[in-house]
Each structure stands twice: as C-alpha cells, then as structure tokens.
C-alpha cells in the first residue's frame, strides 16, 4: 500500500473512533431534546464536571477506578435531576429562547465554579489501559479510542432500544410529542423530564471519563461540547442513529481537514471544518439527516 493511501486510512480510522466518542456526548444532548424539547448548551460543561469528579475521586481522594466511575455517574445523575427540578421545570412552556439562555448561563457558571471547587490546574485521568497504540499496517489505533468507541456504541444501542421498545421509552417519546395528550393517557409527564436529564447525566459521566483520559481534566474539557452542535445538526437533534452518523461525519471531516489542509495553512482547520459542514447542512436539510420533521397536514 502506498504511503498516501495508508495516511488516508489512518485519518479515516482515527476519525471514526473519535467520531463515536463525539456521538456519546451528542447522545446526552439528544436525550434531553428528545424528551423535553430543551436545547442544552451546557452539554460540554456536564462532561467537564464529570471529568472533575472522576479525576478528583481518583487523584485527590484516592478512590479505586470503579468507585470513581460510580461516583461520577451518581453525581451527574443527581445533578441532572436537581437541575431539572430547580431550574428547567420552571421554564416549561416558556419560549425556547428562555431555556437556551438559561443553559448558556449555566454553562458559564459551571466553567467558572467547577475548577476551584475541586482543584486547579490540569489533572490527568489515568485509566488502566495501555498507552502504545495498536499497529495494524498503516493504522495506529490508540486503545483509549477503541474503549471510547465501544462504550459509545453500547450506550447508543442501549438507549436506542429503550426508546424504540420499552414501555417507558415509548412514554418518553409520547411526552416529547404532546405533553397534554401524554397526561391524558396517565403518563406522569414531569417525572420523565427529570429522567431525561438524569440519563444525560449518565452519558456525560462516561464522556467525561473517556475524554478526560484523552485530553486531561481542566476547564478546556468543556470545549468538546462545541463539537456536539455540528454532530446533532448533521444527524438530527432528536435522533439516536443521527447522533452516531453525525459523530462519524464530524470525526472524519476534522481528521481529513487536519491531515490535508492544516499542513498548508499552519493548523486550526480541524476546529472549524465541522462547522462549515454544519452550515451547509442547515441550508439543505434543516431537520438533519434523521431528525423528525414538523408534520403539517392540509
């Protein structure tokens, strides 16, 4: 195989694995949007907080890894529940912009308050996996990316099943579709809002641990949240398969950009290339590739 082709495959394989890790975080966003129609601009900060909790448990408190993972998940689930109760429930039925502004505000607060409650400076979040990449011909595959992609796929499949087949999942979609009718069917609508935020907490906790291992834990960990927007716009705000596909596309696009364009312009294209694609996608398919359309009847 020529070096050029090998390089291309390297970029693609890397993009796919990283892309699935974006999908995991996007899933957090999708869960909330699907169930409550709220747009969460603090998704990246959820991930950051999870990273702080996990790294804090490991490094400061000295907990074993399994416990740190559990603590991160439990804290984020609780955080999601409480946040819904105290802040978001008050905003139900208000214009979308109210929720958007509230979560943007929340994001700033978390970025400001998060670090000094636990520690300052960047902390590593070591996981018991090897550092040296697997080498497969031209491909170098870091084990953390394999783990990340695996965890992402497992949770995407799990939540996909939940929404499609389970009684509670169907009820949740009913709530998202029409709250009043859902109530008429005896569904306890408000409880499901809390459940959706709690589920986002689980996904964010795992995202925080995986991305924290990859990038180190500090305020900048929240920046992965910015990748969520191109992912969900490309895939559809409320679609789980869309989150997978959107993640893969964003992963590949940024790797291709980094591999082929960066050398000529001195770097940085990786960070905006997905947004170029996002804007193009918005112009062509405003509901994303899998998103639900507003059904209009005449």
């Amino acid at each position: 195989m020529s070096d050029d082709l090998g390089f291309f495959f390297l970029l693609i394989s890397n993009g796919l694995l990283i892309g699935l890790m974006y999908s995991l975080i996007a899933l957090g966003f999708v869960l909330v949007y699907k169930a409550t129609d709220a747009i969460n601009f603090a998704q990246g900060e959820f991930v950051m907080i999870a990273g702080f909790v996990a790294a804090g448990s490991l490094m400061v408190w000295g907990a074993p890894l399994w416990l740190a993972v559990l603590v991160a998940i439990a804290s984020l689930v609780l955080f999601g529940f409480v946040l819904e109760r105290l802040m978001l429930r008050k905003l139900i039925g208000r214009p979308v912009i109210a929720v958007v502004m509230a979560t943007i505000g929340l994001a700033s607060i978390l970025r400001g308050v998060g670090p000094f409650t636990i520690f300052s400076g960047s902390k590593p979040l070591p996981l018991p996996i090897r550092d040296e990449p697997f080498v497969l011909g031209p491909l170098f595959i870091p084990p953390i990316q394999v783990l990340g992609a695996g965890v992402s796929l497992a949770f995407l499949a799990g939540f996909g099943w939940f929404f499609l087949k389970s009684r509670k999942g169907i009820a949740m979609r009913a709530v998202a579709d029409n709250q009043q009718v859902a109530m008429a069917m005896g569904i306890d609508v408000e409880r499901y809002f809390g459940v959706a935020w709690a589920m986002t907490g689980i996904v964010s906790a795992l995202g925080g641990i995986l991305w924290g291992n990859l990038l180190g834990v500090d305020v900048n960990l929240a920046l992965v949240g910015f990748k969520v927007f191109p992912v969900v716009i490309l895939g559809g705000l409320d679609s789980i398969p869309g989150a997978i596909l959107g993640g893969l596309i964003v992963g590949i696009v940024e790797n291709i950009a980094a591999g082929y364009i960066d050398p000529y312009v001195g770097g940085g294209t990786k960070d905006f290339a997905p947004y170029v694609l996002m804007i193009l996608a918005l112009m062509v398919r405003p509901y994303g590739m899998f998103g639900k359309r507003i059904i209009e009847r005449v």
Partner: protein
Amino acid sequence: MTSAAPRPFLAVSNIEVIYDHVILVLRGVSLAVAEGGIVALLGANGAGKSTTLKAISGLLRTERGEVTKGSIELHGKAIHRQDPSAVVKHGVVQVMEGRHVFEHLTVEENLLTGAYTRRNGQATRNDLDLVYHYFPRLTERRGYKAGYVSGGEQQMVAIGRALMARPTLMLLDEPSMGLAPKLVAEIYEIVARLNREEGVAVLLAEQNATMALQVAQHGYVMENGRIVLDGDAKTISQNEDIKEFYLGLTGVGQRKSYRDVKHYRRRKRWLS
C-alpha cells in the same frame, strides 16, 4: 344484578370552573353517568362541554383552569383534586377534541401509550388485538407514523388508545369533528359497540346532536356554562328548541338561526 336502576357512578355536582383565576366558565354544572350508560352533552361553540370533560379528567389544570366549587365523584370518591394520571388509574379516560395523536409515534406505539398505567405485558398484547378487532383499518396502518394517517384513522387511534387503558368511563370530546358523515357514522357505530360489548360507559360531548342522541340514553344541553335542559335522549331529540338550534330542522321562519348553526359547523371544520 339486583338493583333496578343503574347507580350513577360518575356524579358531577354543581361545579364551577375558573380559568386563569378570573375567567368564570362553568357556573354550576351537575350531571350523572350511570354504569355502562351513554350520556350526551350537547351545546354550541363555547358552551363549556370540553371544559366539563377536562374538569372530570383533571386535564383542566394543564390549561390553568380550576374547579372552584362543587364536587366530582366517582363511586362516591371525590376526584376533582386528583391529577390526570390518578384519574386514568380509576378507569376514566378522556379522548380530547381534535383527534390528538402522537404524530411522530407509529399507530401501534400510540395505542401502547394508552396502556401506560397498566404495566401488564400480556394483557396489553391482548388489548391490542381487541383494538384491532374493533378498528380493523388500523391493523394495516399499525407501522405508519400517526401524523400521516387520515383524519378518520386518527380519530380511531385516539379512541383505540383510550380503550387500551381499559376504562370504565370514556370521555369523548366531539368525535365527529371535521369528519365526513360516513366516517362519523362508522365511528359512532364502533362507540356503540364498545359500550354494548365491553361495558364502557361514555360521556359524549357533541355539537352534532342528531348523531349523539342516536346512541345516547340520556342527554344534557349546555349553554353559557350551565345545563339548560336534561332528559332522556328521545325526549330531547323531540324538543322543539333543540330541533331548531341543534338539529337544524327548522321551518322557513327560523332560517337565520339554522344558518348560524351551519356556519358554526363549517368554521369548526376549517379550524380542525
């Protein structure tokens, strides 16, 4: 069964309903539904039919409405302070006006949401079969998104979904609204069968009095938030005022009011 007259298991006594703390909409409404009976609640636009049904189902609160006086009792137990989910568990389900389906869910998923409060998997599957038995048309549509099936089919989904809760009382709000006469007849036929064969009592809010009085045993006529007339269905359908205003059977002299009635119907069709 030893008792002669069926006892009223739903008793609405003198209720007053206020929206937004200030808008008084029901001014002392009383009505009763007997076990296994069909009762028609008639009246023009804005009379307060839907409000009465929502007061019973508890959905009033989702629209900032409140029962401020009187009581609503089911088997002698007050339900007017309970939330909709508790009312459904007591066997009372509302089919809201305007064929509200979950548009992005399939027809079958819509039906499944009706069984939400019951949790019994096997019973739910049997009841799905029951719904498809009564609404054979839905069988072919089970995998379709409910937002894309026809208006008549959506009304069937809404009624079938309520049936999945295995109610003892169904609150049906204008099932005829915006549907072609043939479909209306089809749906009424099924409602009558559900009542006969499954023993579901029905409180039926309608502007289409002709249709409603054909299936109901008893009727109430509402105007301006009050019950102005009540009696058995036959008596009401022979009442001259009712003929004039709700059945559209007036002589030449009353053309104006007849046209008004027709105008209402037409407008409703457009709005739906």
